[in-house]
Structures are given as structure tokens and as C-alpha cells.
């Protein structure tokens, strides 16, 4: 078989050159004030919003802080100002639709036992049903580590992730395109409004978990243990629709993953007394009041378990 290598290489080289030229051109030609590339795919994320603010303000050299990580449940439900008010420095690295795949690369590039005295890893069923593309799109544009972006993009095994990386490399991301008015600092977003309605009946999502997400969840735990980062896995309060049988599959997965590690699963999903009307901003996320109440309870639990010392802090306040 005489393979015409010269023509093959010329074809590959021409394709790469045309691709880079096209992406570069679409990043620099503007239409209605925005680079043209954002009009060519609904999976491209603009730089900006809470992820931009959070990851650019995060100081990896800060010592001994509690870091919260996970999906929107994390950055909307775990109030780091409650931690600081209780005397524990804290930062929230949660981001929209962040899945274990994305979390793994964030831990890998940003956290070690020096800058993170305790990692609170939030988890809920939704992240296991998500392929991670949405979060990869967000984080390839909004967090500063090239290595983390490349790792996520590669692990997606999806050509769209390649396009996201090309956009990251070839576009101007020096300034955010927009900001999130609910961003309160320390990686936290505060939503004051309440959903104000009764939750619907629990509904079991029959879809199977995306296979790689439980694997990456186990990898996150392995990485933390390897780096000597103390870690707890947590789930915050849930409305009625996410309780009971709807939550069972996740509980089983987390329990089996953590078995023998000594890492606790602090599952607040079905705590008695959850106020479905007044503690939630929507069907899925805590509002500011719910986040404050939940985080107080979480800090109490962490102190009682010995993960955090009992200290007297300053009153909670947002900047």
C-alpha cells in the first residue's frame, strides 16, 4: 500500500491553517458589536459573568481557606460570608453546570494542601446527568488556567470543545463582556427573591448517569487524598421534588465512592423543616436566606465533626 504521505500531510496542514484563519477572523470581525464567532454556535460562552469575576479574584497563594466547589448549587447555595463571619476564610469556586469532569481539572490546577485547608465538594443528581459541555464552555473562557481549559476540552472528546479552545486562544479575553449583578464577591451569587410556590411532587429522572461523571467524581476524591487536601462531600437542601427516590441513586453512588476513604457525605437534601416556599429562588437553587441558613448549619456540622475549629468571627456582611 503506497500511501501518498505528502498529499496527506498537505491536506492536514491546509485544514489546520484554514481552521485557525477562520476562527481568528471570526474572533476579530464584529457584527452588531460582538465578534462574529458567537453567532456561529450556541455553545460558545462570552467571557464575563460570575465565573469571570470569581476565578479572576481567586488568589491561589492565599493560605488556609475553605474552598467550596461544584455547580450552581455551590456558588448560589454556600455562602462564604457566613464562613468568614464565623472566623473561617472561605472562597467559592462553584460555576454554572460544573460537573465532576470540570471540578477535577479545577482542583488539579488551582488547589493544594497549602491554599485549601478544607474542600467542600457539592454534588447533586443533575451534575451526573450533564455531559459537561456547558461548563467546559464557561470555564474555557472564564478561568485563567490554560492547562485546566485544555484538560477539560480534551476530556470532553467532542469537537465543540476543540472550537472552544480555539476561541480561548485566538480571541481577546482581557475584559469581560458582561457582569452578573447578583455576584456578591468571594465567588458567591446572592439571589434574594423567593420562589413562593409549593414544590411539585418528586419525579425520578430515568436517564442513566453519564458514565464519565462518576469516574471523574472518584478521580476528584483520589486527587484530593493524593494532595493531602481534606475534603467533605455535601448536598444542600432540596425542595420536595428532588427528595426521596429521586435522590436515592446519587446517594448510593456517593456512598460507594467514598467507602473506605473516611470522607463524610454531608447530605442535607432531606433535612426536616426545609421551607420549600421561602428558602429557594427557583425549583433547584437556594436563595440568599436559604443559603445563609444552610451554610450556618454546614459550618456547625463541620465544627462539630472537627473539620473546622470553633471560633468567634465577625458578623456576616457582603462587600
Amino acid at each position, binding site marked *: *500500500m*503506497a*500511501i*501518498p504521505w505528502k*498529499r496527506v500531510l*498537505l*491536506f492536514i496542514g*491546509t*485544514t489546520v491553517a*484554514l*481552521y485557525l484563519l*477562520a*476562527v481568528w477572523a471570526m474572533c476579530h470581525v464584529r457584527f452588531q458589536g460582538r465578534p462574529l464567532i*458567537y*453567532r*456561529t*454556535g*450556541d455553545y460558545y460562552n462570552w467571557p464575563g459573568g460570575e465565573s469571570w469575576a470569581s476565578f479572576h479574584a481567586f488568589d491561589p497563594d492565599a493560605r488556609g481557606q475553605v474552598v467550596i466547589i461544584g455547580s450552581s448549587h455551590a456558588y448560589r447555595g454556600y455562602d462564604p460570608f457566613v464562613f468568614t463571619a464565623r472566623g473561617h476564610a472561605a472562597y467559592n469556586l462553584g460555576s454554572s453546570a460544573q460537573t465532576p469532569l470540570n471540578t477535577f481539572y479545577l482542583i488539579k490546577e488551582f488547589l493544594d494542601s497549602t491554599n485549601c485547608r478544607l474542600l467542600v465538594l457539592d454534588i447533586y443528581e443533575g451534575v451526573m446527568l450533564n455531559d459537561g459541555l456547558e461548563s467546559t464552555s464557561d470555564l474555557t473562557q472564564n478561568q485563567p488556567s490554560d492547562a485546566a481549559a485544555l484538560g477539560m476540552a480534551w476530556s470532553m*472528546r*467532542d*469537537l*465543540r470543545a*476543540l*472550537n472552544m479552545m480555539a476561541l480561548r486562544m485566538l480571541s481577546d479575553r482581557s475584559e469581560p463582556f458582561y457582569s452578573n449583578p447578583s455576584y456578591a464577591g468571594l465567588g458567591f451569587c446572592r439571589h434574594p427573591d423567593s420562589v413562593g410556590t409549593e414544590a411539585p411532587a418528586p419525579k425520578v429522572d430515568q436517564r442513566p448517569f453519564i458514565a464519565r461523571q462518576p469516574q471523574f467524581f472518584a478521580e476528584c476524591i483520589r486527587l484530593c487524598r493524593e494532595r493531602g487536601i481534606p475534603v467533605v462531600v455535601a448536598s444542600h437542601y432540596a425542595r420536595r421534588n428532588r427528595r426521596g427516590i429521586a435522590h436515592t441513586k446519587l446517594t448510593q453512588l456517593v456512598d460507594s465512592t467514598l467507602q473506605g476513604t473516611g470522607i463524610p457525605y454531608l447530605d442535607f437534601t432531606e433535612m426536616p423543616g426545609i421551607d420549600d416556599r421561602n428558602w429557594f429562588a427557583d425549583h433547584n437553587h437556594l436563595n440568599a436566606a436559604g443559603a445563609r441558613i444552610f451554610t450556618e448549619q454546614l459550618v456547625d456540622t463541620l465544627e462539630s465533626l472537627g473539620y473546622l475549629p470553633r471560633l468567634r468571627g465577625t458578623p456576616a456582611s457582603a462587600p
Partner: protein
Amino acid sequence: MLFNSFEFICIFFPLVTGLYFVLPHRWRWLLLLVASCWFYMAFVPVYILILGFTIAVDYFAGLWIERSEGRKRKLLLTASIVANVGVLAFFKYFNFLNESIAGVVRGLGFHYGVPDLGIILPIGLSFHTFQSLSYTIEVYRRHQKAEHRFGIFALYVMFYPQLVAGPIERPGNLLNQINSTVPGTGMLSRFDSERVIEGLRQMLWGFFKKLVIADRCAVVVDQVYGAPEHYGALSIALATYLFAIQIYCDFSGYTDIALGAARVMGFNLMVNFRTPYRSASISEFWSRWHISLSSWFRDYLYIPLGGNRVVKWRWYYNLMIVFLVSGLWHGADWTYVIWGGLHGSYLILALVFAPLLARFTRGIGLDRAPALKRWLNIFITVQLVSFAWIFFRADSIHDAGTLVQRLFQTPLALDDLRQLLADLPRSMLDLTVVLGAGFVFIDPIYDAWVKREQPLPRGLAGIALFAALLMAIVLFGYFGSTSFIYFQF
């Protein structure tokens, strides 16, 4: 297995093709047969038994027909046709017939208790049934010798590139290439880099049509056709034109991948599409659209019915029968029957009014501007074909009625697009329209290149033209895993 899947592109195709060229020629048939089974069983494994039944019936029918004479010969052919059409009828049309009868019986106020069958239609059933049938008919007509090796005949029916969505091959083409005795052709092909590159180019063009054009158009089409009562004339017209592009790119894209994959291995499958939207009449459209099916119906139904060598009313009747059956072949639903009926009606009306139209065009002087006349005819043909697509794509007769009613009764206003823009991302709609419109212009050019009817520019320009397709697939491809429309038939 889908052509547009990771398994096909990264594992199946390179592995099978690599082994094909490495193995001695005498083992190639076995490799391709095993690969074809693997390819088919990736969908619903158990349905290979149905395929096996069809193959066994037609294999023995072929042998016996060859040995028989007179009435017995005809009887064996009839048995083969009944067995093949019986399988097709059972799996594809039972529920349709049952529902139709139930509707009539219940409409008359009687109880009807025969339940539908809870079965999924075996993939590509209509295609391989017709391909297998063409073999027994050709043997009966003494145009083809019966194949004595069961494995070779099975490969003829199951050849993976065209197994699930055609082209519907004839034994005179494919079986003879499998049995090739001429070195360097068909199964005896050697690795020829020029031919392999030509095949890969055609596959790339097919992937471009499927991933960049068809699947992107599908998003807009599905939105409008999924809730026709929410949209007005402009959105419905836009979605219908996009569906015309979608179904062409989806089906001809599949065909290009099939032809390309076969060509890489040294097989030449029949051309199935010739830029059909450049047709200046409905009859020309059918000589350019799904050619393997329309020629199958011509040879095995239309001509046996008498074709056009009969009195006029009988000719029109023959045409209508062929198109109604063609509609039913596509799907077991009244929407497909109406679609076929519309095409039959277009053809009959064109024949009836041909003298009048000729006088009219002469009268207004259009005959003196043949180019303008042709473009005008192309425009009218596209409108007629697109209108018929409404019935083909609609989820039910009721939806088709709603679409047609809203298409003609709501005002044609730009405001109408607001609803569509609210339901879909703006970027999605803009890019789909731009790519769809762009495709209409580049299609004839690339089509001629991949069919080797026009020489490709030499040197880097030729390479860049296809590198641009790959670049476009990566950059603009729609990667929600989707099947091909014609798989359901």
C-alpha cells in the same frame, strides 16, 4: 451503526478497509460479510434474523427459478415476491392497516379490538427487500445468472455501505463486482491511492452535507413542524424550504458516504442523486432524485403495468399507481400516500396541460429565452416539490392540514419570524439560513467534482477546497448525534 458516529469513523471504517487491503482476495468476501453483519447488528441485533430469512428465501428462489421453466418458474418468482413483500407488510404496514381499519370500523359505530404490534421497524427493511427482490426478478427474466455461493449472495444483499439506506443496487452492477474476474476491479481491486482519495473526498462531501447542512436545518424544521399552530406563513415557508434542503443533504449525504466508502474498496455503486433541485420539471426531478428507487419502480412496476405504451387514461393510471406505491414505500402513513399522490398528480397534470403550456410559452415569447425559461421552470418545480414535502415531513394528516392552512391563510409578514426567534437562538437561525443558501450554490460544483464529472483544480487549490469542507465540519458541524431520515424506511 451510524456513518456519523465515532465507532464508524474511528474504528469500523479504518479497520475494515485496512484489513480489506491486507487480506488475500479470496477472503475479502468473508471479511465484508462479517463486517456487514457487525454494522447491521449495531442497531437491533435480533433483526439480522429477518434479513437472514429474506436472503435465504431469495437465494433458493434464484437457484430454483434458474433450473425451472414455464409455470413453475413464474410460481417460484411469485413465492419469492410474496415472501419478501409479506415480511415488509408485516413489519412495516400491519399497524398502519390495522389503525386504518380500526378508524373506519369505529367510525361506523362498531367495536374493534385487534391491537397494534409492539415492534420497531427493522432498519433499512424497504431497501434490502427491494434489492433482494431485484435479484430474483432479474434471474427470472434471465438477465442474471443465479448465484450459487450463499455467502456471496448474502454479501450482495448486505454490503454494508448501502445496506440500510441504499442505493438499491441491481445484481448486474454489485453482484458482478463482487464476483469480478478482472484484476484491479471490484473485489479484486488493489490499493490505488488515487481511487482511495476520490472515495474519501466523496465521504467528506457526504459528512459535510449531513453534519453542517442537514442536521442544522433539522433544528429549525423540527421546531416549526413540531408545533405548526404557533407559526405563521413565513416561518412555515422557511421551515419547508429548509426541510427540502435537509432531506436532500441528509439522504444524498448518506449516499455520498456510502459511495465513497465503497469506492475506497474498489466498488462503484450506482449514482442516486444528480442535483435534483436543478430540475426543470417533475419528471426530470424523478430522474435526478433517489434514482435507484425510481428506476426500480420503472423497471419492476411501471413498465410491467404497461408504462406509456397504453391508452392515455391507462398511462395516467399507471403513473398514479407507481407514485402511490412509492409514497407507501417511504412510510406507513397517509401523509406519505398523499405525498406520492401529489407527485403523481403533478406528472399527470403536466402531461394533460403540456400542449396548452407550450402554446402559452410560445405566445409570450419565452421560447426565445431558453435559459430564462429553464430557470423559471426550475423555480416552479422547486415550489411544487417543496409543497409536497410538507406532507412528507408533517407528523400527521392533521398537522399537514394545519401547516397548509396557515401557509396560505396567515399574512406573509416579517413579524411572524419573532416567534421563531423567541424559540430558537438567533445565531442558530442566522447561520442555518446562511449555510443553507450557500449550499444551494456550491452543491452543483462539489457534486460534479466528487462524481468526477469535472476535473478538480490541480495542486494546492484542489486540496484546499476539500480541506475547507473538513474545516467547516469541525467549525460549523451540528454534533447532536442524529440518525439519517431514510433509515426509518
